[in-house]
């Protein structure tokens, strides 16, 4: 099978994730959309690795996973802290610094 097909899936998933980040208001869902984008990128990396015949793409995807895990840990901690003070997990309520 042509590995390029995976790249199409990757592009679609990335786009869906991007829409989600802009459109959804719940901070946690926004975060999940970011994760989806990272995953789409990972799929592309793994596919590139296969196309090129080297494992470097997989190593990069591995690093992406670690970074994503860090991001989630800190991000969710921030969301919990915001929720503690604002009693809401909506991104609109976290923009108070602006006003």
């Amino acid at each position, binding site marked *: 099978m042509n590995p390029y097909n995976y790249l199409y899936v990757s592009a679609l998933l990335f786009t869906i994730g991007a829409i989600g980040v802009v459109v959804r208001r719940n901070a*946690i869902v926004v975060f999940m959309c970011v994760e989806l984008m990272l995953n789409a990128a990972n799929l592309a990396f793994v596919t590139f690795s296969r196309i090129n015949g080297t494992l470097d793409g997989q190593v990069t995807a591995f690093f992406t996973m670690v970074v994503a895990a860090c991001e989630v840990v800190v991000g969710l901690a921030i969301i919990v802290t915001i929720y503690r003070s604002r009693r809401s997990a909506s991104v609109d309520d976290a923009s108070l610094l602006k006003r």
Partner: protein
Amino acid sequence: MIIQTPEAVMFWILAPIAVLSALGMLLVKKAVHSALLLAWVMITLAIFYIAQDALFLGIVQIVVYTGAVMMLFLFILMLVGVDSSDSLKETIKGLRPIAITAAIGFGGLMVSLIGRATLGRTPVGLAQANADGNVQGLARLLFSDYVWPFEVVSALLITAALGAMVLAHHQRTVARPTQRESAIARFRTGSLASAAGLPGPGVFARHNAVDVPALLPDGTPAPTSISATLKARGDMLESAQFQLDVVDTTVVEEK
């Protein structure tokens, strides 16, 4: 491509499901459903990895993403968002059409670019790179060419874990009262009537569930007898309807 390989069959079944689940994640209202759909997308991606000769990465994808990251999301959702329902109302005017148009344009651009671009070679495949085994190949790369990024990333991971602990840590400003202190406080504050404890819920023999406030001797419901959560949620029954009728105490002469 007339003869479909097993991989192609797998791809053409799972890829549409993955894209549809991702779309569903975008559209469903409950955040927990979103998280579940995303977890499913991640599992399909793991299967894609395994199909593309990235066995180790596929398993790690399930362990890290499905097992840890999405579980963390679910955890936070249960801690934070169980009672907060997510509204799909747009707060910035015209954001949604613009976003969707832009995203479709971007996606279309990417898809068409991939379709036209050639990477200059036919797919090589990983048969040679994985000759010693996928895990061994990855390990060789990680501990030779990529050892510096590997160390940096592990430092980042530890920093992130510590950072999360610092962020989520809740400093106690007042020392927790000891049993002795709280016992003294119970007798010192308020009247002694409440020192023995709060009244239990329920109207004896008529309705003894926890959502029915107890009746005081004068027939009024005791507000402290049921949980404040039940009261706030509105899951509270009127206890007056379970009150006994006035008992006729007059003695009737027997004939």
